[in-house]
């Protein structure tokens, strides 16, 4: 019995990977502009990116894992739905023929990378998180008309992290997508 408990405790204490979710609170992504652009847009995330999970540093020698594209896709959707009348998920690579036949005026292509760090020795939750978001937009003819890069950095204290393990990550993604929403809602490139 003693050996069994020792073995179980060893499993628990050895560094492991913990799941967190990095989706920001979407209600924080707001624009004052109520009239959206009367256009349907699409966005493309490859299925391999969507299914890909990444590990990054947590505290106490542990790591955290999450799905950057899958978990930040709702934030991208919120941003695009806040600016444009309709948004379509594109499951095939973007081609002018496909965009024209589906009446999609612009296609967005996001690229996301992340980093994390924890100042905690006894806790695994990241106290600092960075989201690097690059987004490009193309016309139906495949012409690049808009490209921006956003860096969102989020931090959280231990007491905050006990209530929400991914809080630093959520704050980082909230900053990156909030900046994108502000830019996009004022971008002249999409207003003919």
């Amino acid at each position: 019995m003693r050996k069994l408990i020792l073995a179980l405790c060893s499993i628990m204490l050895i560094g492991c990977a913990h799941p967190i979710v990095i989706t920001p609170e979407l209600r924080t992504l707001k624009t004052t502009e109520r009239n959206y652009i009367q256009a349907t847009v699409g966005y493309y995330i490859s299925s391999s990116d969507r299914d890909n999970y990444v590990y990054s540093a947590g505290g106490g020698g542990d790591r955290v894992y999450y799905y950057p594209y899958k978990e930040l896709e709702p934030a991208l959707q919120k941003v695009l739905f806040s600016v444009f009348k309709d948004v379509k998920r594109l499951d095939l690579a973007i081609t002018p023929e496909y965009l024209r036949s589906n009446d999609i005026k612009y296609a967005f292509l996001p690229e996301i990378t992340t980093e994390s760090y924890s100042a905690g020795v006894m806790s695994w939750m990241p106290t600092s998180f960075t989201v690097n978001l690059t987004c490009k937009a193309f016309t139906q003819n495949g012409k690049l008309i808009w490209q921006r890069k956003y860096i969102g950095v989020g931090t959280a204290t231990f007491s905050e992290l006990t209530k929400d393990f991914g809080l630093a990550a959520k704050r980082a993604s909230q900053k990156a997508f909030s900046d994108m929403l502000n830019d996009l809602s004022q971008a002249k490139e999409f207003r003919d």
Partner: protein
Amino acid sequence: MKKLAVLTFMLLFFVLGCSTVAPLYNTDFNNISHLRGEKLNSVKVGSVKKDLQEKENVDYLTLRGGKYESPNGSFTAYLEDALKQELDDARLLDSSSKIEVSAVLLKNMLDGSGISIGIAEIEARFLVNKEGTLTYDKIMTASHTWESSFAGAIAIPRAHQNYPIVVQKLLGKLFTDPEFMAALR
């Protein structure tokens, strides 16, 4: 013997959980394109209540022995907030509308105790009133499962993160019900 007690305590510490607060609800944008394309009237959201006749308290959830609390104060308020958020993102929410959507939360279950699978189930009765006339009255249910673990450090965050998905699934069923769509026209 003392060592054994300490080790047992440590083991329980890693398997069990303490009080956690559910993530705030996030809209499922798969519903939004559908709702925006349906040419529906604006609606207001009435109250979401619990059925006092039900034996189980839908506002009380636990996760591995720890309390799982709603960030909105109660899980009826959580569902109400979820409805408002989805309709607002679809640009269909209007507090002055004569069409009102309300609900009664009948079942609310979160089980993160399993070592291989976690389960959440929810059931609600949705009602639509149009200028005082009941035009829709239907019970919707949704369930959601995810991969769990023996270790609390993995099982608790997973259950914590998966609860909102069952609410998204419930509202997804409501928003794709043709009768509900008809009640909003």
